[in-house]
């Protein structure tokens, strides 16, 4: 039987099969953060049971942390309480905890790969939908709810029905100024936000083969935005090179044995997917969203689609444009913006800061723009400094903040005010996502940089 990459990893983790029910799937690594875990720990307490494998569990604080003055006590009492709860729960159950101020602190999906926790062929879950990020390494990684967090803490297993399989091929060469974020936003715009619901996606083709590991993470990260349970890319030499020498990466004979296994992790020639879709890389241009879900994206040079040309309900479409205060047919280029957010588990890695710096270098931040540049982790922050990117940013009038999820979901104070427009490298443009009444335009770090220096939606290719 020919197997897909997804089949290989899934099937090797099934502990028990329930007829006409879910599989019991063993989870290699469980990442935990402060927002979706407290009720799960209460559940354990109520049942009087421990965490089954604390050494397979990793906790970090990211969603609800401030991005300035992290050395000071957290001023919001509710946030402080939630952080304290995670710290106490981790200590009580013997889980390693990388809290605020810890050198390894950062966004869970940024630090996982950085420290080698993320490995090919592993099953990885976290109470966060962007857990799909880790699929870039050929892992099965997906987001779960709090009941499932409790399930994994208690039993290291999850009960899930195996998803259907989809392969998305993108072949050819990417155009100038087109980044992994644009590739992902393009795919989502074609599939819609529910086009991959019920599926686990494998990304294949030249574009992903040639993409850096960080780029692959960006693409897999956004899988959930088309409804997919997760996305994955077959590991290759690039993957093995990236993993080598990280804290949780095996060494010596263990590494050799692991690599032997990792090399078997690709879809067999002739394996059949439930659905297969192909795109041509040359059709993709820098993307931007104009509406209130990530599927509402267009090439930056294009106009906002007419309601009649859009799939789905006209009323929902018009409601969305009304929220954005945009009209059908308008150009996106030239639209004024107020905020720029560079960061998140989607685009908060060093390559994203390099891309942003490549455009703002020698230019100045527009006066009408408030910019929040938030590294995904302390490692990213350190690299920004070491590589001289911080100097470039400072000269252009930008400040760097401290690591965290920040304005991606605006649980902390990094909130875009009502009615204001933010060009954001994050992953969701839902109503109010970046603060009540905020309006989000999702884009790549290059598009964000072009907007930051011009104060309006601008084609980054002008600067390249």
């Amino acid at each position, binding site marked *: 039987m020919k197997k897909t990459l997804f089949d290989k990893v899934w099937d090797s*983790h099934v*502990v*028990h099969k329930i*007829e*006409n*029910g*879910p599989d*019991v799937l*063993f989870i*290699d690594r469980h990442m935990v953060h402060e*927002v*979706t875990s*407290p*009720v799960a720990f*209460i*559940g354990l307490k*109520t*049942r009087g049971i421990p965490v*089954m*494998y604390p050494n*397979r569990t990793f906790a970090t604080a990211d*969603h*609800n942390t401030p991005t300035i003055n992290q050395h000071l006590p957290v001023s919001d009492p509710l*946030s402080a*309480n*939630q952080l304290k*709860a995670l710290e106490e729960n981790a200590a009580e159950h013997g889980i390693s905890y990388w809290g605020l101020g810890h050198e390894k602190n950062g966004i869970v999906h940024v630090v996982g790969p950085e420290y080698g926790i993320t490995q090919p062929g592993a099953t990885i879950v976290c109470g*966060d*939908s962007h*857990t799909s990020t880790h699929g870039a390494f050929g892992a099965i990684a997906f*987001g*779960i*709810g*709090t*009941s*499932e967090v409790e*399930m994994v803490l*208690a*039993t*290291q*297993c999850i*009960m899930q029905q195996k998803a259907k399989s989809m392969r998305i091929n993108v072949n050819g060469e990417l155009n100038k100024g087109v980044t992994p974020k644009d590739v992902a936003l393009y795919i989502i715009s074609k599939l819609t936000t*529910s086009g991959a*619901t019920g599926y686990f996606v494998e990304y294949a083709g030249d574009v992903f083969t040639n993409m850096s590991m960080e780029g692959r993470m960006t693409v897999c990260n956004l899988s959930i935005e088309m*409804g997919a349970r997760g996305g994955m890319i077959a590991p290759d030499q690039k993957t093995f090179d990236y993993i080598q020498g990280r804290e949780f990466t*095996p060494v010596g004979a263990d590494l050799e044995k*692991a690599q032997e296994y990792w090399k078997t992790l690709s879809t067999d020639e002739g394996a059949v997917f439930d659905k297969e879709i192909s795109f041509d890389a040359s059709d993709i241009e820098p993307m931007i969203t104009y509406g209130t*879900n990530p599927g509402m994206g267009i090439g930056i040079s294009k106009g906002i689609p007419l309601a009649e040309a859009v799939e*789905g*309900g006209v*009323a*929902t479409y018009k409601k969305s444009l009304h929220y954005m205060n945009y009209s059908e047919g308008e150009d996106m280029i030239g639209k004024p913006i107020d905020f720029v957010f560079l960061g998140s588990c989607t685009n908060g890695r060093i390559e994203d800061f390099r891309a942003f710096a490549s455009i703002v270098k020698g230019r100045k931040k527009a006066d009408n723009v408030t910019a929040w540049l938030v590294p995904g982790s302390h490692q990213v922050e350190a690299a920004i400094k070491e590589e001289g990117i911080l100097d470039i940013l400072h000269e252009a009038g930008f400040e760097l903040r401290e690591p965290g999820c920040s304005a991606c*979901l*605006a*649980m902390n104070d990094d909130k875009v005010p009502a009615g204001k427009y933010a060009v954001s490298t994050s992953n*969701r443009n*839902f109503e*109010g*996502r970046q603060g*009540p009444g905020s309006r989000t335009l999702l884009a790549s770090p290059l598009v964000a940089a072009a907007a930051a220096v011009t104060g309006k939606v601008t084609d980054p290719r002008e600067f390249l």
Partner: protein
Amino acid sequence: MAYDKFNILKTSAVPLPIENVDTDQIIPARFLKATERKGFGDNLFRDWRYNPDNTPKEDFALNNPKYSGKILVGGKNFGSGSSREHAAWAVYDYGFRCVVSSFFADIFKNNCLNIGVLPVQVSPEFLENIFAAIEADPETLLEVNLPEQTITLTTTGEQEHFDINDYKKENMLNGFDDIDYLLNIKENIREFALNAPL
């Protein structure tokens, strides 16, 4: 840990004929700071339900006194976005026991099943008929029969079968819990873990 049992639910329903209702609308992120599972119903659809000054938005379905009941009927692709179970908790805590739509996002659907809220997927045509029936008469009763896996629009007798796997169905009917199941096969898990490299 058991939750409410679900068998047959006959009730009026609250209509939300909007597509792609995401979990940020169901419960905005700023209300996720609690460390206990309580009070989420107050913030269900917070920003659609209330103005910034906390006065109710009168045109929103939950604020319209003519709509009531334990079933929430939503447009296609209900519950997309974040994995926050808080969204399902908010739906439950407000008083809903069932959500009907023509399509659900995966994680939201799982979260509902895990806390005893039944997600019922119907055809787009049937969904339109339900919306039309509620609009014509807000007191229209829907009957959701879990043992038979049917949903009926009682005014016309129109009925559809809905899918749920046998395992989850048993859980919902009896208020059983996944973790109890898994704890009973803990030895199998332990054995499996011996061969699962860290």
